[in-house]
């Protein structure tokens, strides 16, 4: 029998009170841990997906929408831009690398992105099987898209108009999957990539006013040739779609081609001071920096998280007060016990420490429960999000902020225990035993 055992025995002697305190502390701690983890993983996911993209150039509109649609593939595009004008900026000396995107179709909820292999390179995307496209209507599937839509080398898929599924299908123009990418843990996993030509071809094909040379050379590397539509009736409703990004892409000739956005990497950080401003001022295009848009977005989300965190803080304070009330309330009933400890040879300091120990054991149990609950919930949430949203998140990480949380919990626990312990320290043994 020693002090820790005595403290445990005392806590076990009033199991309901101890349990309530531990559960209160645990819930408060779990809430804060969960909010910390969500906030961190949200920002790290956003940052990871914007890696290597200094600037997005697209149509005028909301800069957040431009970034969301062309970097995170989470919103509708702001519109299309002439490829010729985008090319002008792509060849700007301040630009190290520029990747064009053309959006508009999807397959079972996975966006089909007309681009160059350079897009996969942004995320260090490696081929797990097959090759990149060489001809129009060849596609490469991201890892998650391939797994969930059951795509593999040689599969055929028919793109649907619109980005959320349920749109009109390009039935006569199936893509052929020629490659599958290895998982990267980024948005790339949930995309189906193809050439710009494929997207142009698909959407130019249905327009009667288009080129009528009936050239069926699908292998044409530059895709300049316009094809006649083998299934004219399939395109009947195509033009009425108002919300697509690429409606206008089909109307021009090869010089009038359009893309949805251009992802730009600067040669040097200095470009950030001049290039976006110049684009916004001198052209009909819009330039938005993902980093600053993410920051703005996270500030908005952060306000919500801060509110929830404050609420969790109140939970913890309530728990601390409950610990205080339990120990302080028990003091009167236990004053004979404490006096007896002194008679048996315990010093005042030991009696004080024994009460602190009881408080700290409660806090430790509550914190343990809270951290287990918080991380466990995050892991479950992460698996669910990975399955449904393709966001990679895990509960099995440890944040530096959690160390601060532990220190805070111990401090609060000590404060809650200090007054009862001090009262125990001052116990007048003779008076209590004589009374």
């Amino acid at each position, binding site marked *: 029998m020693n002090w820790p055992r005595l403290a445990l025995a005392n806590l076990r002697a009033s199991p309901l009170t101890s349990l309530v305190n531990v559960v209160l502390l645990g819930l408060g701690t779990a809430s804060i841990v969960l909010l910390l983890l969500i906030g961190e993983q949200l920002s790290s996911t956003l940052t990871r997906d914007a890696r290597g993209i200094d600037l997005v150039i697209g149509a005028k509109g909301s800069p957040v929408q431009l970034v969301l649609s062309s970097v995170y593939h989470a919103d509708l595009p702001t519109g299309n831009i002439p490829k010729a004008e985008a090319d002008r900026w792509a060849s700007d000396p301040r630009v190290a690398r520029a990747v064009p995107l053309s959006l508009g179709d999807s397959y079972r909820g996975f966006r089909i992105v007309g681009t160059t292999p350079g897009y996969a390179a942004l995320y260090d995307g490696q081929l797990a099987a097959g090759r990149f496209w060489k001809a129009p209507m060849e596609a490469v599937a991201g890892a998650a898209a391939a797994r969930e839509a059951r795509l593999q080398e040689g599969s055929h898929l028919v793109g649907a108009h619109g980005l959320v599924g349920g749109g009109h299908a390009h039935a006569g123009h199936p893509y052929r999957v020629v490659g599958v990418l290895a998982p990267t843990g980024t948005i790339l996993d949930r995309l189906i990539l193809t050439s710009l030509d494929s997207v142009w071809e698909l959407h130019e094909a249905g327009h009667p006013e288009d080129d009528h040379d009936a050239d069926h050379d699908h292998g044409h590397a530059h895709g300049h040739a316009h094809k006649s539509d083998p299934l004219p009736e399939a395109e009947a409703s195509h033009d009425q779609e108002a919300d697509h990004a690429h409606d206008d892409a089909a109307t021009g000739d090869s010089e009038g081609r359009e893309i949805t956005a251009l992802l730009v990497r600067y040669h040097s950080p200095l470009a950030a001071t001049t290039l976006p401003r110049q684009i916004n001022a001198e052209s009909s295009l819009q330039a938005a920096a993902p980093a600053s848009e993410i920051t703005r977005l996270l500030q908005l989300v952060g306000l919500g998280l801060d509110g929830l965190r404050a609420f969790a803080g109140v939970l913890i304070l309530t728990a601390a007060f409950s610990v205080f009330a339990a120990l302080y309330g028990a003091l009167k009933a236990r004053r004979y*016990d404490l006096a007896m400890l002194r008679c048996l*040879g315990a010093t005042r300091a030991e009696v004080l420490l024994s009460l602190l120990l009881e408080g700290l054991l409660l806090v430790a149990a509550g914190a343990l429960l809270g951290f287990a609950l918080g991380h466990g919930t995050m892991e479950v949430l992460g698996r669910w999000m990975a399955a449904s949203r393709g966001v990679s998140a895990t509960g099995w990480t440890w944040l530096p902020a959690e160390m601060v949380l532990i220190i805070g919990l111990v401090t609060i626990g000590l404060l809650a225990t200090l007054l009862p312990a001090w009262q125990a320290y001052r116990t007048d043994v003779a008076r209590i*035993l004589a009374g």
Partner: protein
Amino acid sequence: MLRLDALTLQPAETCAVIGPSGCGKTTLLHLVAGLLRPTLGTVSVCGQRLDELSVSACDRFRGRNMGIVFQRLHLLPALSVLENLLLAQHLARVSRDGAAANALLDALGIGELARARPAQLSQGQSQRVAIARALVHRPSLLLADEPTSSLDDGNAVRAIELLRTQAQSIGAALLVVTHDRRIRGQLDREVVLGGAA
């Protein structure tokens, strides 16, 4: 105000201090235990003057050298009978000796209650546990405050006998303070306080 000229107990001597309520018996016991400090005069136990010790040192000294049985027994309710004894060993800073604790409980006829909680015990059983707890670290001085007040005649005599034999078995001196005249003639010496002889 308690005045006492001189009282000296030899090792293994037993002594009863008898007097009516309010005459200062409990104060005397607290003085001897070092729980109170005398305004005048000194208390020495085993040759150690208690007033020369700091509060903490006095706590430790009491724990090591004395065992106290109070009128209200104050067994720790969160602990089992055996754990109460083991805690006394721990606080007396003697090495943990579960075998000795169990043997002592057996000697007091309550060996089968080692795992029981104090709340499950009868008054008589609780008193035996309290006596065992006061003896388990083999102190030099056993103090008892009104050990017989709530007992009938037969049990009162048996309780005093128990205290006497147990103190003798470990060579401890025994000091009993009481207003109970039934114990007269059972211990080596008697001191009467407050002129109520």
